[in-house]
């Protein structure tokens, strides 16, 4: 029963992706877009598989992934801890809340030049930008998740002798986990976008860099290869996150 369910859902999930690719092919075939702007999918995937086995392209992917993971990890750690601390302590909340209100909606890319000068042209500036952009969705979800934790769960743990600071790890964190993971999922997608954007603006390696160099010289196929790659990376990472979620939330009714 279960494996069958899984295979139907995989088919269902593949269907729209196949449709999108078919639509793409259609747009090209029927001339809605010139091939120089939108190359046919067959070419793009062909080039992608060619590229995937090359050492240079793998290095570009590695550079992007390092930035993506580092930035995302920092965002998760900071977002979850600040979010929980703010939910748990009115004093911290009073400080964090206005700061979040001001900092969250800032367009972080505008700070990118300053970051470049501060942290250099390497990984540091990009990781910081990714972390800064992915932080707030995670923080906000954590905060709301943590501040609506069922009161009696906390009471039960306190009565069992759990010290206050440990309540945060032993009750608030697991109880807020569904919300935190939703925030992480959004943060992950944003990380993908931002790492790419940062590499597009200024970089000498990474998928974003591959894309801009291709775009400047109108190498449409080479431009779409990194796009498809980031797309697939997003899909894979999200699948992994989904598995983590299913494991962490196995006790929750919604899992």
């Amino acid at each position, binding site marked *: 029963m279960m494996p069958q369910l899984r295979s139907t859902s995989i088919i269902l999930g593949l269907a729209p992706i196949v449709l999108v690719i078919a639509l793409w092919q259609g747009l090209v075939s029927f001339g809605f877009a010139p091939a120089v*702007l939108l190359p046919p999918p067959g070419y793009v995937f062909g080039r992608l598989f060619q590229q995937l086995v090359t050492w240079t392209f793998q290095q570009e992917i590695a550079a992007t992934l390092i930035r993506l993971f580092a930035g995302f990890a920092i965002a998760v750690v900071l977002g979850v801890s600040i979010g929980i601390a703010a939910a748990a302590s009115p004093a911290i909340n009073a400080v964090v809340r206005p700061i979040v209100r*001001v900092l969250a909606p800032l367009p972080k890319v505008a700070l990118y030049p300053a970051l470049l000068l501060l942290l250099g042209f390497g990984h540091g500036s990009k990781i910081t930008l990714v972390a800064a952009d992915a932080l707030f969705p995670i923080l906000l*979800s954590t905060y709301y998740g943590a501040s609506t934790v069922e009161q009696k769960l906390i009471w039960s743990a306190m009565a069992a002798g759990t010290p206050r600071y440990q*309540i945060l790890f032993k009750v608030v964190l697991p109880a807020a986990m569904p*919300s935190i993971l*939703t925030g992480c999922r959004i943060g992950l997608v944003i990380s993908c*976008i931002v790492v790419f954007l940062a590499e597009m603006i200024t970089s000498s390696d990474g998928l974003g860099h591959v894309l801009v160099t291709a775009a400047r010289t109108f190498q449409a196929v080479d431009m779409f290869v990194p796009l498809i790659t980031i797309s697939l990376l997003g899909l894979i990472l999200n699948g992994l996150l989904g598995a983590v979620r299913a494991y962490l939330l196995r006790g*929750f009714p919604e899992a």
Partner: protein
Amino acid sequence: MISPSALARRAAPVLACIGLLAIWQAASLALKNDSFPTAIEAIRAIPDILGDRESLINILASLRRMAVGFGIAVSVSIPLGLLMGRSRAVAAFFNPLLMVIYPVPKAALMPIIMLWLGVGDITKTLVIFLGVSLPVIYHSFEGAKAVEEKMLWSGAAMGLSPAQRLVRIVLPAALPEILTGCRTGLVLALITMITSEMIARQSGAGNILFNALDMGQYDTVFAMIIIVGAMGICLDAFFERVRARLVRWSEPQFDLPLSFS
């Protein structure tokens, strides 16, 4: 009459902002970096922007796009998210698709988007739409998944059709979670409102900001950042008020008894 603690609570945001500015000021003085002006320089540039009729029109144009993008995104994403949350098939259908589409940076697709939608409002609104819809869809999705089954059963037993259940039970029950998504969406709306104007610009707050950035006028850049931050505060405060009204029933009855004070 205001009690000292209430006074402290009122003052906290102001103090936090002042603290932020002070840290900024100190950091920029320490770094001595032209592209990172001091807070005072940035604040001094604000009146120039706000005093300029053209800049105001620019900012209003951005806000209008943001409102439109946000509105459309919310009205599309909530139903989609709720449907995904209540139907395995819908979730299985859309989830991979969304996860393939969203990570692609819109800036990279500009040539094709321009091909079909031009360089005007539609393109920018689309970018804002995509930014906002991401958190709203996923929070609605998870919120709908977590709705207590027996509440739906009760509704079904009263004769609510599946569609009615979605609107009259899943929606209100998931509302706190949906609003969390909307709040994140609001933040992203402001960000994408600016960044959507990075590559192609006609009028808008991002126009001012990126022009200044291209020209190395960092005091204007940071003045715009302050202005956007201020908009963030206002929108957020307004949003919190709406939220408090809508989900009063779900507020925890006691504060988390964990304060370390």
